[in-house]
């Protein structure tokens, strides 16, 4: 992380992504699935922000809406100075090289009829004026960077294992020298022994190329390893956004606490003695979220106010933002960037 400039590379303000529900013969618009419902955060240049939560909490939708793979319902997203959500189509296309994505399923995100060289080279054809020879040189360079043997350039995706396919996906994302990469569950489909290989590669590339990551995952121990700060999402909203060490040492939001306590650890002694918080029931439907706090239906510390008033994400300790009525609102509003700067000094470098 060479770039220590304190300005955030990515600024997200009150991002909302609603998917309409149409019912009846006339397909009338009768409601919305509020997949992302007012999410705000910053990502500093060179930083890795971990985004964790359970399936259906909206974490992948955030990642996609952020680089406008969806058209968000409301909000602002600024990446390296441009407001992504208002860019005209051609300007957005010109912006794409700066922001890339690595997808969860390397099987589904690579075209089975294209060779490895074609897959990695496609963004170069689309966005750079390189000649065929220059392109091939760049393709080889990228394959070296992600640890793929150059001899495999003319092979097809099915000839590779899951971990190698994910390397192809990473090489494709790197092709245009992006600043910001959304990693959407990049290791979820891989075997344990292969996960470490891919995570180490992502970290090496970040060190070498000064990349900024949004690392979306449900694997809390892997996020602890890779992220500088972590946002915990629940039902379309951020429950807690804290520096990594502070969060894992003492989660403040009751959901973050329950989530961390639910992760089994490979240590029989500790597993035997651990007090686990077992949440009752399931996550409510994002089409019909509870009034007040989204977590009030399962929260072990629920109070009356939680069922009526929605808690705002506020800074409760320097650098730590929590959306919970247990923590009285202090003067500092959540949206100031001062918290982010503090974290960069503390943890980001």
């Amino acid at each position: 992380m060479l770039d220590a400039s304190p300005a955030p590379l990515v600024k997200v303000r009150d991002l909302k992504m609603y998917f309409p529900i149409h019912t009846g013969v006339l397909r009338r618009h009768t409601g919305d699935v509020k997949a992302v419902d007012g999410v705000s955060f910053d990502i500093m240049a060179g930083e890795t922000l971990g985004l964790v939560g359970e399936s259906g909490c909206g974490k992948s939708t955030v990642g996609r809406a952020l680089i406008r793979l969806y058209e968000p319902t409301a909000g602002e997203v600024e990446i390296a100075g441009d407001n992504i959500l208002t860019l005209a189509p051609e300007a957005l296309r010109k912006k794409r090289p700066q922001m890339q994505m690595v997808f969860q399923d390397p099987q589904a995100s690579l075209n089975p009829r294209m060779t490895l060289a074609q897959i990695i080279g496609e963004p170069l054809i689309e966005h750079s004026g390189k000649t065929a020879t220059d392109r091939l040189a760049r393709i080889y360079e990228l394959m070296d960077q992600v640890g793929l043997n150059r001899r495999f350039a003319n092979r097809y995706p099915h000839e590779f294992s899951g971990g190698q396919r994910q390397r192809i996906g990473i090489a494709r994302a790197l092709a245009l020298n992006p600043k910001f990469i959304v990693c959407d569950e990049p290791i979820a489909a891989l075997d344990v022994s292969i996960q470490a290989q891919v995570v180490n590669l992502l970290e090496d590339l970040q060190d070498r190329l000064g990349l900024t990551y949004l690392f979306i995952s449900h694997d809390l121990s892997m996020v602890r390893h890779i992220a500088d700060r972590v946002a915990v999402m629940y039902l379309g909203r951020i429950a807690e956004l804290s520096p990594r060490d502070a969060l894992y040492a003492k989660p403040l939001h009751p959901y973050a606490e329950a989530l961390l306590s639910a992760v089994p650890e490979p240590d029989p002694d500790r597993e035997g003695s651990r007090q686990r918080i077992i949440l009752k029931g399931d996550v409510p439907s994002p089409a019909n979220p509870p009034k007040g706090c989204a977590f009030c239906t399962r929260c072990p510390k629920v109070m009356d106010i939680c069922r009526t008033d929605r808690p705002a994400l506020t800074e409760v300790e320097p650098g730590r933002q929590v959306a919970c009525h247990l923590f009285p609102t202090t003067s500092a509003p959540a949206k100031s960037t001062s918290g982010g700067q503090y974290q960069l000094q503390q943890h980001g470098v």
Partner: protein
Amino acid sequence: MPDGGDAVLDVRGLKTVFRTRGGEVHAVNRVSFHLNRGELLGVVGESGSGKSVTMMSLIGLLPSPPAEVRAGEVWLGGRDILKISARDLREVRGAKVGFVFQDPMTSLNPVFQVGFQIMEPLIRHMGLSKDQARKRAVELLDLVGIPDASSRLDSYPHQFSGGMRQRVMIAIALACDPDVLIADEPTTALDVTIQAQILELVKELRQKLGMAIIWITHDLGVIAGIADRVMVMYGGQVVEHGPVKALFARPQHPYTRALLKTVPSLTGAREARLQVIEGQPPIMMEDPTSCPFAPRCAHAFLRCEEENPLRRAVDDKTLLKGHDVACHWEAVNG
């Protein structure tokens, strides 16, 4: 049954191959293990290590062809169930052995009410009448913690969430009070908070019913929390086996040791860099004559290429009863 004892299930030298167009795949090689009454045996391995195929071959759930159980004995209830007729085997499945599959979304039939699916084995195997079966089905749903059980019997699988569906699957597997419950990655498709609910349920059920369970998973954390004994599989073989505490405290096989280190920790010091196991898991295209882990092993030497290691005891217990490992290299434990 060999050496009597407490074992409800005793598997000896199981070998399963798949005939494919590219040749024979030796998916399971000389796998031996036993399961004692009331015990939970964890089976760990990566995809393709043979852990699911082992369990499916021992109760004849693999389609043949392409699968062929080529050798071995599986002792259950005083009989070698590899040698019994298909008809008898059907009685064993469901009545003696319950199976919970990984994906609760696809292992329930979407067009039948869950009540019917729970009652079916009760009527078939236990000869209960419809009313009796319905009563028992309500008890079972209660047991697995589904609220308002009697009215939920008439719901269809899609009306349940993933965690609830897995509870229904467990209820079906428990329906005929089996001696052995085999759970194949039962929580892998679930979120961690829901996984925690299911793990808690299984602990409760074990106390109430004292059943013997085989729990297949790739998650070392889950194993550490619930298993009594662990069996680590790699390339279709058992590479290490032992009591859970001994195995986690003093792992012997280089694969087990590396596997434990590739998982980042949730507490304690944060590792600067994750340790990796280079290379890929093997596909066993021939009967192995060398150690299947040798190409990726940091400690491999000449003998590993020439001779597939047999399991040897690493404590003072008889082989297969205590902690054992299939490796030529001797681990030094500090």
